């Protein structure tokens, strides 16, 4: 799907940045790259442009520009309802953060089952049952 198809509050993973010349280059230098997580924040009252959160920064893109960005929808773990089994796509953080999570069995590709939604969240992974803080869960993206 295209980035411009996201609804308010939804997150996505960039898979491809298309377009040519200035616009292509500008999107890249703002840090919109394959593998980047983007959240749709709000739409302008007139329907265009749209504000997105990218690498902790709010950036406004016109629909014409957002359509160059190919994405796939992902969901932060903290928004997954209890009872569901989901696959981890991405862990958004530094090496230390990723290590801590991998010790709980939360790494890209692995399945996670949500036992309790809040608070704290409790999940079952290959390595057992763990409690995860909501802040941490918001940086684990699943599908």
């Amino acid at each position, binding site marked *: 799907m295209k980035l411009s198809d996201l609804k308010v509050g939804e997150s996505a993973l960039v898979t*491809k*940045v298309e377009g040519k*010349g*200035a*616009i*292509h*280059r*500008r*999107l*890249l*230098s*703002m*840090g919109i*790259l*394959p*593998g980047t997580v983007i959240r749709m*924040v*709000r*739409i*302008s*009252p*007139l*329907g*265009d*442009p749209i*504000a997105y959160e990218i*690498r*902790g*920064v*709010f*950036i*406004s*893109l*016109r629909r014409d*520009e957002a359509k160059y960005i190919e994405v796939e929808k992902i969901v932060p773990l*903290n928004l997954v309802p209890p009872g569901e089994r989901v696959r981890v796509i991405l862990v958004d*953080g*530094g*090496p*230390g*953060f990723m290590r801590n999570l991998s010790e709980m069995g939360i790494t890209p590709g692995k399945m996670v089952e949500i036992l309790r939604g809040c608070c704290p969240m409790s999940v079952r992974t290959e390595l057992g049952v763990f409690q995860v803080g*909501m*802040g*941490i869960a*918001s*940086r684990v993206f699943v599908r």
Partner: protein
Amino acid sequence: MLIALAGNPNTGKSTIFNALTGAHQHIGNWPGVTVEKKEGHVEFEGESIKIVDLPGTYSLTSYSLEELIARNFIIEEMPDVVIDVVDATNLERNLYLFTELLELTGKIVIALNMFDEARRKYKINVKRMREILGLPVIPTVAIKGHGIKELLQESLHGNFAPKGMEYPDDVERRIQKLLKVLEKYKVKNPRWHAIKLIENDGEVIKKIQSIGARDAIHLAEHLRHEIEDIYGDDIETLFASFRYSFAHGLFHEVAEPINVGGVTLTDMIDHVVAHKIFGIPIFLVIMYLAFNFVFEVAAPFQDAIDLIFNGKDIAGGGHINGLIDISYNWMASFMPNWLASFINHGMLRGLGAVLTFTPIIMLLFLILSVLEDSGYLARVAFLMDRLMRKIGLEGRGIISIMLGFGCNVPAIMSTRALRNERERKLSIALNPLIPCGARIQVFAFITSIFFVSHKAVVLWSLLLLSMVVVALVGFVYSRTIFKGRAEPFVMELPPYRLPTIKGLGVHMWEKSEGFLRKAGTIIIGAAGIIWLFAALPWGVEYGSQASYIGQIANFLAPLGHAFGLTPEALISLFFGFFAKEVVIDTFTVLFGTKSAMLASMTALQAYSFLVFLLFYTPCVATLATVYQETRSWKFVLFVVLEGFLLAIFFSFLVYQVGTLLGVGG
């Protein structure tokens, strides 16, 4: 010693520049373009340091003017040190530019600006950052002046042992291969050129072609395809990814988030001011308040300046002398009357006019700086973009249009908020078509005499006409003469911040000074010329039918007849060129009484006159500002012609159609 300041937009770079140079700065333009160039000077530890503020950019590609200026400056002028001003609250994105700078020069001092604010977001290990990069890293809080001295100290004595950024081995090997070829040609900075050649950078390819290094270009092309094949993506995406992964790695190595998730204050404010329903009404209220603030607060100052220069008529007859009268009486005692009149009634009156603009301009830039520094201006762009795009402008274009209803001079100066040169010129060309406060005063005056029972309808019809014309002309211009490459409108919505008094003061003075010096000279000169037309041949009554302007008006009378313009109307339009509100004075002087005015024109003629007044040439001050902002007399001429053509077209239409229908006869 030469220091260049580089950095992203919204990093506080200009605050650092001001803190470094203090009052010793010079604002000009980069050669050949309207991009602002700031240079400054500082004496530090006996060393004389020149500081150049490079345009704020997100990267150093060849796709935008600003980015080309910044990188060419570093390549060609070879500054001794580049200070990279980094927004520490937004470290990862800002480090991307750093990776590009690092390929141009190893002498970089990093200023981690807004460090106080960043510390609430994450723990930054500055020492670790220095170790990893091998470069001086200084935490700064520019608005408080923290870290400024250290920046200079490190620039002079710092230890520069850059570790550089590593590309994946299979990319690095290919860069080295090309480097060997390029070294034969003795290009400065061969590594940077090698990388840019592989990256398919248009400017660098042209440059390398011009030195005849065809083998390097062929090799680069070959290597580019190899890399694209290995990684399965286009070269631009790949190099951006390499750099970002370095920035990402460095960021996580030195910064530890303190508080993730949770709603930020900025988010909460945006929730209200960018709200689906309330966003635009809130914007209108803010603009209304800002507008009133500027013009209400300025009014007493303007009145005072006017009183000082022009004196005042006393209600029961008589006149209190102003500076112009006093100075005229004094000069006339020892020099010919015509000369004294020229100096005082011409030039000195011009100076008075310049000064009466100053309070408005200072206050306006105060407000604009508050809007910009607080982060609200970016939200205005977000709110209004879709509407403004229809007339070829981005969202921020609405600001200058709204300000135009107050005064076109500051409105045209406010177009500096537009980043894109084409859009700036377009909005400068549109602005004079918006009736300023002075024209609206004249409308009110004339309608109160000629259209007593339909005042509001007539006034609103004129405002509506101007809005329709601005929209139409903007629509046409943006698709014809001001057509251009569509520039990406990828805009950051910075976090809201409280503007600082010091920052505001600097802005206010910077802008007003430019107006006073440059536009001021032109206005005073024009005032002198107007005097010559109105007062000569010497001995006639000022501005009367016998003066040159009166003679011209009589000569043009048959032509004016087609638009319903009487000779008196023509004379008053001539004086309106100096300042639109003078039209009221001229009418009063020429006719004396209301009934004389009513006898001189029909209602239709009066309306046609107002339509003409709405569009015909902007006043001298506006033209001087157009020149100051565009540096082009051609552009000034264009604005004058545009105004006259629209005035002629619409007043002709109104008068002829009105006559045909037998209205107001």
